[in-house]
C-alpha cells in the first residue's frame, strides 16, 4: 500500500489552534506528524525520536525559530527545516538567521506549497543520508575489517541513520 514514503514531520509553533488543524490536514495527507508548541519541547522530542522534516515558526516565546533550528540540527544533522514567517518578505527572514533552512515560507501558509515543500525537503534529506551512508560504508570497506566486522559496523550505521 505504500507507494508513498512515510515522511515524519515535526511541527513547532506556539499557536496551538494552528497546529491542531495543520496536523489534521497533514495527517490526512499521509504524513506522520508530531506537534510541539515550543522550541524547547521540540528539542526534547527530537532527542528521543528521528524526524525527516521540521516545520518551525520563526517567532515564538522562549527560543525562537532560528535557535530551535540550530539545536535541532545539532541533534539530527540530516533533519530539514522549513521555517514559517509572518514577515513581509522572505529576505528579511533570511537576514534574521543564516541557519541554512531548507526553505522559508510565509504565513498564512499556502497549504499546497507547504505539502510540496515538505516532500522536497524529504527528498533532500534522503539524498544527504544516502550520500553520507555510502561514504561511510566505503570507508568501512577500505578500513580492512573482516566480513564480520564490516557487517557489525554497517548495522551500527543503519541504526544511526534509522535505516531498517
Amino acid at each position, binding site marked *: 500500500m505504500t507507494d508513498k514514503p512515510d515522511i515524519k514531520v515535526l511541527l513547532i509553533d506556539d*499557536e496551538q489552534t494552528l497546529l491542531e488543524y495543520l496536523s489534521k490536514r497533514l495527517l490526512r495527507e499521509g504524513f506522520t506528524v508530531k506537534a510541539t508548541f515550543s522550541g524547547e519541547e521540540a528539542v526534547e522530542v527530537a532527542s528521543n525520536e528521528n524526524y525527516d522534516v521540521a516545520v518551525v515558526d520563526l517567532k515564538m516565546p522562549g527560543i525562537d525559530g532560528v535557535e530551535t533550528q540550530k539545536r535541532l540540527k545539532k541533534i539530527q544533522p540530516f533533519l530539514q527545516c522549513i521555517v514559517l514567517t509572518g514577515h*513581509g*518578505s522572505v529576505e528579511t527572514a533570511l537576514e534574521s538567521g543564516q541557519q541554512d533552512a531548507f526553505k522559508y515560507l510565509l*504565513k*498564512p*501558509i499556502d*497549504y499546497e506549497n507547504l505539502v510540496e515543500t515538505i516532500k522536497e525537503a524529504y527528498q533532500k534529506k534522503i539524498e544527504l543520508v544516502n550520500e553520507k551512508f555510502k561514504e561511510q560504508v566505503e570507508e568501512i570497506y577500505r578500513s580492512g575489517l573482516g566480513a564480520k566486522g564490516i557487517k557489525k559496523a554497517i548495522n551500527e550505521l543503519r541504526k544511526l541513520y534509522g535505516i531498517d
Partner: protein
Amino acid sequence: MASIEQLEEKLKKISRELSSHKIELHQTRGYLQCILQNSNDMIFATDVDGILVSFSKGGEKVLGYHWQEVAGNFIKHFAVDPKDFERLIRTSQTQGSAVRLELPFRHKDGHTVYCDVSLITLTNTKGQNVGLVGVCRDITAWKKLQEDLIRVDRLAEIGRIAAGIAHEINNPLAIINEIAGWASTVVEDAKGLSNEDRDELSKAVGHIIEQTKRCRAITHQLLGFSRDSAPEKTEFDLHELLRKTIVFLQPELKYKDIDIVFNFQDKPIQLRSDPKMLEQVFVNLITNAIHAISDKNNGKGRIELRTMCMENYVEVAISDNGPGIKEADKERIFDLFYTTKPPGIGTGLGLPICQNIMKKLGGKIAFESQIGLGTTFKVAIPLS
C-alpha cells in the same frame, strides 16, 4: 553786542552744519531706501485710511504686482480675508503695533501666499495717527516644508502602526486559513451530506479561503512597507531588470490587448542600487498601468518603458495610454490606503511603497497625467 562779522560767521557756521546735515539726511534716506528695496520682505506704508503709499520691491515679488498696480489701493484687499486684516489694523492702531504669525494674502496669479505680518502705527509728534507701516515675510515655502515634514512623519507613523496591526492580524489569519482548509477536506469526505449541501458548503468554505488570501496580500504588503531593512546595493544592468520585470508580469498581461514598447537608450546602463527594491517599484508602476488601461474599454493598450541617462541620475519613464488621473486624485495618490481601484484589487499601498523605496534609495518618483491621454510615472535613480 555781537558785531556783524560775528553774526555772519555764525550764520556761515549754521549753514555749513545745515548742508552737512542735509547730506547726512540724504545718505540716511538712501541707505534706508536701499534696505527697503533690497529686502525680500514685503514692506509697505499706508495713509491713515489704509491706502498704499509705498510698496517695496520685496512686496512686488511676494504678491506679483508692480507698485503702479497697487498704488492707491487698500492694502486689506490683497489679503485673502480683508475683514480679518482690518481687525489687525485696528489692533495696531489701539496698541501701537500688531503681529500675526500667519496671514494669507492673494498673489496676482491667484495662489495664496502666507506671510508673517507685523504692523506698526505711525503717529506724528502730536500723537495723532497718520498711517501704517507693515513688514511681511513670505513663509509659504517654509510652511509647505513644515507640512511635508509632518506628512512624512505621519506616513511613517501610520506605516509603523499598520505594520504592528498587520503582524498581529497575520497570526489569527493563518489559523483561519488552516481551519478553512481543514473544513474543506471534511466537507469533501463527509458522508450523509446531500450533493446540494456539499456543493453549498464547499463553495462557502472556498470563499473563506479566497478572502483569507486577500487579507494575506494586504498584511504582507503592509509588513513589507514598514520594513526597516537598508537597501542591499549591488551592480546590475537596468535594462535587463526592466525586461525581467515584464517577464514576471506576463501572467497579468496574458489576456489583455496591451503592447509593451521598450524605448531604451542605446548604451546599456550599469547601476549600483538595490535591484529587488527597484523591481518592486517597477512591478507596482507597471501593474498600475495595466489596471489603468483595463479601465478604459476602447482602444488598444500601450505601455512604454523609456530609459535615459542624465548627468547624475538615470530616469525610467513608464507611460500608459489609460484614462489618466483625475485632478482630484492627483494630490492623494501617494497617500497610504488611498485607492481608486475597486475593492479587492487596490489596497492603496502600491504607490506609498514606491515612494518609500525611492526615498530609501536616494531617488525620486514623480508623474504627469492628462485625462484621456494617459499617465507617465518617472523614477529617478541616483548614479552614484
